[in-house]
């Protein structure tokens, strides 16, 4: 009995110490009483205002591409080639808004690997055309399909427009060329339909309801995807690799839309704009903003009262955009004439990697990978 009394007494004393110590440290409470950031609203905003509309736009672009392709294949002439090229570019620009969402069906079917692996492998494409019987979904064909392969088929298959049209009319392989072009476009369209349908039928609800902070929850996975895309798809693939940042020499032939020769900057700018719009929670079709990384960081900042991270990140995106604006329309040419400008653009993009990967991840306390070893 005496023991229990003593125990209770010491418990009270300790409780009092804890209570005092916490209140005497008088930093004002700014976080409010409850968690006022609604993560589900962020996921909903992402899904309903950005991801699904972007996929819908891409699907509609690709169906336009498909019908222009049908027209061209039926009647390969300069006018139809121009129309087909135009809709290819439209779809490619929209593609820049979805490449980062490697989640759900897109992740399961390796969607991005079947849509935009470049440089495309010309000898693989030629083999496929000559031998037929190809499986476009095969991993071995990842570098022979998607936008870069169509880029080759529309701009690179022969030297000039007349000869390109010949490749689809008088050439000995004209029928095979037509078939391959057709299969490429159809495949891109059908893959996109699969991903979009999954989002609109089942996955959307699963996505917005996965609000926990675990390695497999929506917020964490998409944050990883977002940063991974920024680092790999945008920074390395579009700028760094062609500029020779990771190699002893630059590679002017490793730019996006290499055969088109005119739009690699445009596509890179689209990719960066997609990143920034998504970061700020804008809709795909609008500039009105909703719950987003930016708002989440602003909320977390009210708790820890540090530097305005979302502003730093936006400023850095703007800096990078300026540097990319200053480049040639055709990155191949930029690499060959003045590669320093390319590496400067890379450096500005890289600075944002630090802010995203170090500061943002730290603020959100999300693990950047799936290693689940113990901590201490």
């Amino acid at each position, binding site marked *: 009995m005496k023991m229990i009394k003593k*125990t209770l007494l010491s418990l009270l004393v300790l409780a009092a110490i804890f209570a005092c110590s*916490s209140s005497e440290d008088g*930093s004002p409470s700014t976080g409010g009483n409850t968690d006022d950031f609604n993560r589900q609203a962020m996921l909903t905003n992402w899904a309903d205002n950005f991801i699904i509309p972007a996929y819908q736009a891409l699907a509609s672009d690709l169906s336009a591409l498909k019908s222009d392709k049908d027209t061209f294949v039926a009647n390969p002439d300069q006018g139809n080639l121009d129309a087909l090229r135009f809709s290819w570019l439209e779809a490619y620009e929209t593609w820049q808004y979805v490449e980062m969402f490697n989640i759900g069906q897109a992740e399961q079917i390796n969607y991005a690997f079947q849509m935009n692996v470049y440089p495309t492998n010309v000898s693989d494409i030629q083999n496929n055309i000559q031998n037929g019987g190809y499986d476009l979904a095969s991993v071995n064909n990842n570098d022979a399909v998607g936008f870069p392969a169509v880029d080759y088929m529309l701009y690179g298959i022969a030297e000039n427009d007349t000869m390109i049209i010949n490749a689809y009319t008088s050439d000995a392989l004209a029928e095979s060329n037509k078939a391959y072009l057709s299969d490429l476009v159809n495949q891109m369209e059908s893959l996109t339909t699969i991903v979009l349908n999954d989002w609109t039928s089942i996955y959307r609800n699963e996505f917005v309801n996965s609000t926990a902070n675990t390695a497999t929850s929506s917020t964490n996975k998409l944050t990883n995807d977002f940063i991974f895309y920024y680092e790999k798809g945008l920074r390395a693939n579009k700028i760094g690799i062609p500029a020779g940042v990771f190699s002893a020499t630059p590679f002017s032939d490793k730019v996006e839309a290499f055969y088109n020769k005119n739009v690699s900057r445009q596509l890179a700018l689209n990719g960066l704009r997609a990143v920034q719009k998504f970061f700020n929670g804008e809709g795909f079709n609008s500039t009105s903003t909703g719950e987003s990384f930016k708002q989440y960081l602003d909320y977390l900042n009210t*708790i820890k009262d*540090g530097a305005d*991270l979302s502003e730093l990140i936006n400023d850095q995106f703007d800096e990078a955009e300026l540097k990319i604006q200053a480049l040639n329309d055709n990155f191949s040419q930029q690499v060959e004439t003045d590669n320093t400008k390319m590496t400067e653009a890379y450096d500005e993009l890289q600075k944002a990697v*630090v*802010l995203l990967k170090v500061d943002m991840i*730290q603020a959100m306390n999300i693990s950047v990978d799936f290693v689940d070893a113990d901590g*201490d």
Partner: protein
Amino acid sequence: MKLSLRTYFDQYTNAAPLVVFRICFGIMMCLSMIRFWYNGWIEKLYIEPKFHFKYYGFEWVKSLGEYNYLLFIICGLSALFVALGFKYRLAIITFFLSFTYIELIDKTTYLNHYYFISILSFLMIFLPANARFSIDALRSKTNYTKIPRWTIDSIKLLLGIVYFYAGLAKINSDWLLKAMPLKIWLPSKYDLPLIGNNLMQQDWFHYAMSWSGMLYDLCIPFLLLYRRTRIFAFVLVVFFHVFTRVLFPIGMFPYIMIVGTLIFFDAKLHEHIIRLLKRALPSLKSKLKNVEVLPQSKLKRQIIIPILTCFFILQLLIPFRYVLYPNELFWSEEGYRFSWRVMLMEKAGLTTFKIVNGNTGAFFYVRNSDFLTTFQEKQMGFQPDFILEYAHFLGDHFTAQGHQAVEVYAESYVALNGRTSQPYIDTTIDLYKQYESFKPKTWILLFNDDIKGL
């Protein structure tokens, strides 16, 4: 003084607490090894990586490849033998060596509690933990019921050091005055049932957790030592460790500590546990000769006591070695490890390496993922000794590839406890020409803030 020390070392006490400790320790360690294997970590952490980060002075410790599995089997079996008290001395030596070898393979996986296991098992080599209720006792048909008191006290002392030093380390301005890093960690637990959406988000709660965590660590050894507060202290131990287990991914450690602190209790409790175990294992009910006192040879004691005295002096001093380094401890981490600095920092970094041809100035950047696992890359990002070691690896690698006049520069940004990331490594220093040593690393840039405290 000398006299009272001598009488202290002549005191004897009931062997039960040490015996129960041995059994629990062995079982826990055996389970830990199985868990490690089951989670696929042997493969992921010790076999898959192409490159391992080494402790200074232990570069000779190599990963055994597929044979690492054998190492884990040996380690797990020796733990089991420790629990059974079968060939105890040999078993605990084997456990200490194999466990420590595993830890030395790659410092990426360094955790304070692995270090704790290593030194605890070292200490146990010198303790008569198989005195009774062990297969060794069965085989020699002798139970020793009394053992020297210092043997049990030495484990209490080690546990006390771990807690108390962990508490001392929390006396710093980030922890107490900014509630960092709990202010980052706790709000991110928004998905905990009941408390995630409210308590975890509250400013006062972050401070309350910081302060009570510090007080808990400082006080708990004394509350456990003092008989009248012992039960209360144990309730605290259970509550604290279970709570941290819920919040953070800390594996088996909380359970090991909970079971470990049982050694502070009176022998009555342990006698009871042994009785229960005997009831559960009726086959062990053999008639053993109960011998009162474990005989101690004078010579043995003259060797063991000095060894353990040195061991404990080192334990008390090592955590303070950081005062010899000029840079901020949390920033440069010189003298950070092996010091019971647990959960003190939220630190992240990004370090990229530039390989420069010293003759032409031509350069390119390294993709770290070509050489490191994501886990290694993460740990390397903010720890200078990792950065230096990796820089040398890269230098050797590219020299072997035929690159000329290789120089290696690091561009590194590190964020600490919610501060904005800042440059970490002097980008003008060729790290390939810097070498690891205990000297201060002058190529680490100075911390642009001040963290006051121990």
